[in-house]
Every structure is written in C-alpha cells, then in structure tokens.
C-alpha cells in the first residue's frame, strides 16, 4: 500500500515546476523523497545520473512551517548550510550576507526568529536554502501559512530571486492560482493512489497578470483536473 504510484516526471534543469493536489495525495511525500528524507519503497529517483540515497545540500528545502533554528539569529540561520563545508569564517559571512541582501532582510542580521513576522521568517528560510547554491530548491507549501497579501508579495519576490539564481524549483502548493502564477509547468496529482494525472504547461510570459484570460483559463483547467469548481 503505497502513498504514491506511477509517478513519472522528468524535470529540466532551471525549470520551475509546481506539484498541485488535494491534501493526502502524497505531494509532500514526493518532495521528501526527492530531498532524500524518505526512500521510495519501489522505483528509482535519479538526480543527474545518480539515484538519490539521502539528503544532500545540492537539494535543499524550504518548509511551510519555516523551521528556523530558534537559538540562531538571522545571519547564523543563513550560515548553517555553509558550516559543514570547509569555508573560512569571513567568506561564510560574506556569502550569507549576499543572500540576506537578496531576500531583502538587510538590517535584520542579528534579529532572532521570534522577533520576525511570518513573511520575514520565510525569507530567512529561502536565504538559508539558497546559500549552498543548490541545483534544486524544494519548496513545500512555502507560503501556505502566510496571509493572502503577503503570499502574493512573496510569489513576486521568489520569481525575482529565481531569475537571479536560476536554480531548478520544485514547488508544492494546493493553490491553483499560485501554481499558474509562478510555475513553468504544473503537475496535477490525484489522491488514492497518488499519481500524476496531468501536466499543464503555463505558456504565459512573466510578469503574469491574474486577470489575463489565458491565466484564468489555465487556472480553470487545473481546478477541473482537481475535480474542483472553477
């Protein structure tokens, strides 16, 4: 009895792909398998030419609940992924600062997580995941716990950052609107068994408008794919 079945998905380098589906469809499980936090019971999952055997800073993750280390301030959180590599301290600070600036947290380096708003916490989460220059950035409903305005703002921020760093992004969401707004392709997962039902290519140039009829049409396609009213 597996949570996932018949998952066949090739992801291109530098691509922004969304996984969308109802809760319980296994989209988070799929992401955790890619991250190396869980092993698939059958089948293989390869990264480049090697199969994934465990976590690796080439595939970092941004979590819905942020998972910042509460005893570390912003700069120390961001530096975490650099500490396992043999990088001199000064160089670590420099790289961390670069990513803190990139996510717009300049001036908050010494703040502790409890002093930050949800949106700011996720900016830290993003900087911390990007600091190792991962080939793939895994995002598990990263903006799911933020309110609507902040969420839209963060989507724009993320796209801006993605243009700068050009890493592959695999982004899990349950919002069709979010998926069409950010992704190059949207993979629709169904529940019981969790499998890929359809892949929708979002052929709209960026920046995208939510009022564009084609945008609305694609969002409808995805919602119909999820058996939801449009």
């Amino acid at each position: 009895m597996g949570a996932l079945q018949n998952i066949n998905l090739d992801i291109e380098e530098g691509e922004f792909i969304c996984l969308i589906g109802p809760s319980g469809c296994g989209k988070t499980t799929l992401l955790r398998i890619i991250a190396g936090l869980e092993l698939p019971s059958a089948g293989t999952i390869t990264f480049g030419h090697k199969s994934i055997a465990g976590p690796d800073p080439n595939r970092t993750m941004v979590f819905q609940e942020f998972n910042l280390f509460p005893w570390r301030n912003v700069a120390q959180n961001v530096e975490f992924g650099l500490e396992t590599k043999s990088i001199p301290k000064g160089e670590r600070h420099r790289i961390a600062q670069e990513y803190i600036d990139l996510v717009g947290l300049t001036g908050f380096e010494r703040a502790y997580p409890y002093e930050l708003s949800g949106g700011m916490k996720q900016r830290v989460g993003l900087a911390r995941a990007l600091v190792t220059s991962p080939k793939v950035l895994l995002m598990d409903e990263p903006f799911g716990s933020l309110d609507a305005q902040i969420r839209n703002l963060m989507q724009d921020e993320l796209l801006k950052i993605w243009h700068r760093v050009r890493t592959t992004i695999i982004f899990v969401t349950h919002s069709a609107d979010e998926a069409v707004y950010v992704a190059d392709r949207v993979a629709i997962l169904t529940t019981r068994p969790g499998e890929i039902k359809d892949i929708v290519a979002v052929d709209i140039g960026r920046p995208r408008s939510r009022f564009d009829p084609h945008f609305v049409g694609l969002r409808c396609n995805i919602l119909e794919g999820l058996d939801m009213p449009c």
Partner: protein
Amino acid sequence: MSRITRQKGVLELLSIAIVLGIWELVAVFIVGKTFTLPSFHEVATSFYDLRKDIPGDVAISLKRFAIGLLWAAVVGIPIGAAMGWFKSMERMFDPIIQVIRPIPPIAWIPFALVWFHLTDYGAGFVVFIGALFPILINTYAGFKSVPRRLVETAQVLGRTKSYGLIRFVAFPYAAPSIFTGIRISMGVGWMCIIAAEMIGFKSGLGFRLWQRFWFLHQMDNLMAYMILIGVVALVMDYVFRYLTERRLLRWYKEV
C-alpha cells in the same frame, strides 16, 4: 502613600521588616529563652561574633559542592544526551536509573565515608548523587523533545551525521532544559552538602551548624548559620540565572 508603595522594593523591604519585628517581639517578650527561640538581635550579633569563621566555612562547603556538581554535569549531561538521542541507550540506562534514583542521596553518606574517607571528594560524592539525576533527566527530556522537523532541516542543509546533529541541533535546542536541570541540581546538591557535613564530615557550614546545637547549645549562632546557608544558596541561584538567562532567553521566549 500609594506613590511610595508603588516604588520597586518598598513593599518587599516592608514585609521583611515586619517579619523581623514580629520575630524580635515574640522572642524577647513571649518566649524569652535563647535556646528555644533566639531573638533577631542575638542572631545579628552572632554574625558579628562568627565573622572570622564564616568565610572559611563557606569556602569549604562551596568547594565540596562544586566538586559534586561538576562531576554530576560531566556524567549526567552525556548520559542524558545519549539516552534522549539513541533509543538503545535509553533502554540500557533507564532501568538502572529507575532503581538508583529513589534512594535519597543522604543514604549514601556512609559509603561516601567508607570510599573517600573524610576528604572533600567524600562530601562531594553525596552532592554528586543528589545533583546527578536532575541534570541527567532534564538533559534526557531536552534531547528527547528535539523536533524531528528541525533535525530534518539540518540534514537537508548538509548536517547528516549524528555527531553534527547532536552538537549543532539537539544540544542548543536542549540547552534551556539542561540549565534548568543544573539549577534544580544546585538546590538539591546544597541540601546534600549540608546534610553530609552535619552527619559525617568534620568541617563546613553543615558541621558548624550541628556543632552549635549538639556540643555548644548556641542556638543564636546556629540560626545565624541557617540564615547564612540560605543566603549562599540564594546568591548562587541568582548568579546562575543571571549568567544563563542573558545568553539563553534571548531566543527561548518563543518556545
């Protein structure tokens, strides 16, 4: 009046003054016998009489206390950490702890004397027994409660080995717990050293206190020692809290 009472420290000092006043009145006018209840002024005078003995007595008790506490931390923190992190360690150590822990530390005094004789290590051993379990159990609880999600976050960011996860995730997460354990241990350990000195060891605050009673019947001196023992514990607790909370509670507010 209300303006004055709102000022910090006024009501606190007032309450202490009232208690001291009642004590003095009861001791002088109702009891009237130093052996049954020495008065406040007699105890205050005792402090002056004992001024030459006090520093040495405090020093020797503190030294034994420090020996015991240090060993309790050196033994308790690694075992507690291992038990909280590795299931097999938990299963191995838990039964032993369950058996030894309920034995009051004071019951170890005879063996402390037999094994270490009248040395500071003997008295320190009683403190060690008393201080070990609060440190060990709190460390264990702290390590046990490390959220899985934080461990996974660290793994994804490249900390994949147990040692790194313990040192950079579990230990900082558990630190407030460990410090709580040490604080409790300090209270228990201080009781242990006084008891050990009262019963077996021929110096220190506990010995002095017992000596005033058993050999000298100087209850005013005895009460001065009682107060001194309390004040030393209070000061240690304050110093410890000052040192740890400034570093720790910056982030601990959230959790």
